[in-house]
């Protein structure tokens, strides 16, 4: 696998922001290191588009909103890919087990999560569309 030019600070910021968008807390060092290592192996990311990508996400606080809007409009595919990368890496860590697998079943909590997720998605998508326009993505 070939590597892309290293941009340590931008990569670190990216890891922190994506993790926060996904899990709402600070990223463990081990995971940050793995995310940066894996990102360097990404063949789909070319130096030119990577610079633009880091510029865009560097100026946006709410990456979850940017990602959902980008996903549905087929803009910023790299951001969606990096979210998925973080999910795969996080899943391998024991402290993330409860983010992926619930121990006890509850229909009420499940229905609540699905409804809340739909509402949140609507809000994030609208916000993301504005971000895409204002950031000229």
């Amino acid at each position: 696998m070939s590597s892309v030019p290293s941009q340590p600070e931008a990569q670190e910021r990216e890891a922190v922001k994506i993790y926060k968008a996904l899990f709402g807390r600070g990223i463990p060092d081990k995971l940050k290191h793995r995310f940066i290592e894996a990102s360097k192996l990404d063949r789909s990311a070319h130096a030119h588009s990577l610079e633009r990508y880091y510029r865009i996400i560097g100026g946006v606080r709410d990456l979850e909103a940017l990602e959902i809007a980008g996903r549905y409009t087929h803009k910023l595919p790299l951001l969606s890919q990096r979210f998925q990368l973080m999910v795969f890496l996080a899943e391998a860590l024991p402290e993330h087990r409860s983010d992926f697998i619930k121990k006890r079943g509850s229909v009420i909590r499940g229905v609540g999560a699905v409804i809340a997720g739909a509402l949140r998605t609507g809000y994030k998508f609208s916000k993301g569309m504005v971000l895409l326009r204002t950031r000229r993505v």
Partner: protein
Amino acid sequence: MFEAIIVGSGASGVAAAMEFAECGITPLMIDVGHLAGHTPSVPANLYEYRGQHDCFDLMIGGRYEGLSNILTDRQVPVKLTAPYLEYVTRDAKHLSPLDEAEFKAIQSFSLGGLANAWGAGLYRFTDDDLEAFPIASGDLDPYFDKLTAAIGIAGTADDLTPFLGSTEHLQRPHRLSRNISALYERYQRRSRRLAGSVHIGRARVGILTEAHDGRPAFAYGGTEFFHEDRSIYSPRYTLDRLVDDGKVVLHRGLLVESWTEDETGVRIFARDLATQASTTFEARTLLLAAGAINTSKIVLQSHDDYHTSLPLLENPALQLPLILPGAFGQPLQTDAFGLVQLNLIWDSTSYATRLQGSIMEITAPRRGEFFASLPYAARGNLALIRHLLPAMIVMQLFFPGSSQEPGTLQLQRNGRLTITGHPNTLDLKKLQFLLRYLRKLGAWSHPRLIVRVPTGHAVHYAGSLPMREAPARYQCDATGRLHGAQNVFIADSASFSDLPAKNMSFAMMANAMRIAHAVAAQIRRT
């Protein structure tokens, strides 16, 4: 000079070797034969283990090989993303370079071939399936019986017996998961009142439910995607034994390129991958079992043919997520059997053909595999993974190869193969009947959720050198003998006359044994 050389160590090659051994012939088997590298230690239950241990080695791999689908252009089916299976597709792009159009071929140069990563669905071809072949089920049945006894196949007599054939020698079927058991119970209660064109029954899989031949029974630990589990049959186990017993001579590290033939036998030309030197072997007979794509390449190279386009069949397939509203809110079943549990046969009037579905749990893959295909924003998708996936199963629906125009395969002068396929354009509207039927069984889906499997990713390649009653060039006769050759036989799925909507592995193995038996008889006669 060897009496027989087998090229390829996959399911077909090993089955042929088994039959040769029984006929008292010791063949030379030649293959690249990559072996598995480091395999991480295995927990009893992966889901329990994950709560206490870092599973990076097991699920991602030290070189991030488990992320190849998102980090590289090496796109492989989900099971092949498991780090320990990296060896299965290792070097394939260099050893058999392809120019693909609308086709994503998966090739293996590992010892045991693609069967190292199979789901072990093993289904007999019946006379209906063999309609276009110059052979009948009676020609394959003795070999199906032998294989069933040797491998240890789980299954039972049920509504699918008329479609899946004899139940003799079967081990008891696998324990059904909670979700799939609920669906099957509804089917059993209501099938008489429902349409008779759909039949559901237990899958037949080469995965032990009882210890057999030194291999353990399946342990329901959710680890089936992440380590080599000896309860799941691999032809490599049979090959190891044949080699240990001196019944096969195995030569690894060689890539067979071509052959020539004269009245004394066959001369095989191979490249030693360590030294890049050419090497030659002589045999009275040659059985090609390198997989349909590579067998065809060897045939075209042997004829210096850069013009002919050979046909290439594959089963078009759909992936149907099925949501079970009745199971919503339950926790994930962490000890479910993650491979095929039930099969569905649908004599479809809308598609005017018979289709076969494989119904399975989605507990075996990493949860992250589903993240990108769920519709919510990131945190919502994580919630869906926690709350929705435990109430979800999946059905892979296979169509006959004749459902779409065959692809083509052509050799270029630079040694590359051009494979041209056709995009999967299966009409989802014709699924309405099946979706309604499944709803009555408590499983809900919608055409918008259904995924068309990219052409090539069903990994059922066949029919490039088909068996015919009266074979022409690049076809073979009913014994697998290639037209125009005296001692060259096609022993893998390249010789299939057609590709029914059924996993072909078992028929491929039985047919390879049948061909080896005929070749052994020929050797004995001369």
